[in-house]
């Protein structure tokens, strides 16, 4: 199993590359969901604000 991680000597380059790419994948998922959550919260805040000044 260990020689799998050894990756023929390229381990020091291959795994960081994979980790970084999957970090980018993860970041995209999280930031997209956060953007949606914030947009919904902002819309909700605006609606209550409109309701308060009797629009």
């Amino acid at each position, binding site marked *: 199993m260990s020689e799998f991680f050894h*990756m023929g000597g390229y381990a020091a380059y291959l795994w960081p590359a994979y980790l970084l790419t999957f970090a980018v994948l993860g970041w995209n*998922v999280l930031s997209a969901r956060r953007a949606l959550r914030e947009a919904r919260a*902002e819309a909700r805040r605006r609606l209550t604000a409109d309701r308060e000044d009797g629009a």
Partner: protein
Amino acid sequence: MDWTWFHKFGSPPHVYRLAGTLTPWFAWPAGILIIAALYGGLVLAPPDYQQGDGFRIIYVHAPSAWLSTMVYAVMASAAAVGLIWRMKVAHAVAASCAGVGASFTAASLVTGMLWGEPMWGTWWVWDPRLVAQLVLLFLFLGYIGLRSAIDDLGRADRASAVLAIVGVVNLPIIRYSVEWWNSIHQTPSVMKMDRPSMPMDMLAPLLMMLLGFTLFFVAVLLVRLRAEVLRRERGAAWVKEVVS
């Protein structure tokens, strides 16, 4: 030609709901494909006769590079549609692309450097592909910078649309000039990044990863699109039932 389908895509509430229902249909296949390709690329595919296992970086580098360019093209075309037909939803799509495109351009840049380092002995070499990705990253950063510098959302949409279109027209010219520049100053051994003839057991995981990344992009785009549509329709009535 019945244009109502076109108008349907123009109506924010419809797009908001459609994006919501479609997201899982892209997200799950993307996840499965990526994991399968990961297994295929790291375990099943034989080592390369020249680079041994080092070549397996292609399975993350090539899809990132593919996404970076494809996403810019999608962004520019959405911007063009938004500008010509004045469709808010199209601008929302363009706005949703920027972050994804920039992140994958950066990923392809770094993975490219990680791939080249063992060959070149240094972290950076003025290889035309790396330089082209770097310039593409600047184009993305310029787009994001312009968008954040303009407060009014409508104006930011239209101004960044012009920039995206100018950028997509210039991109092939920039790439040509970098290749041309590279050919006249012969830089150190230019490493063949993309394999012209790959045996199937090497190529299959790559194609699966490319498709997986593309579906992943669409899924992320749909989620971001809903957020961008909401931002542009805050005052609209339909937002009430959707949000509360």
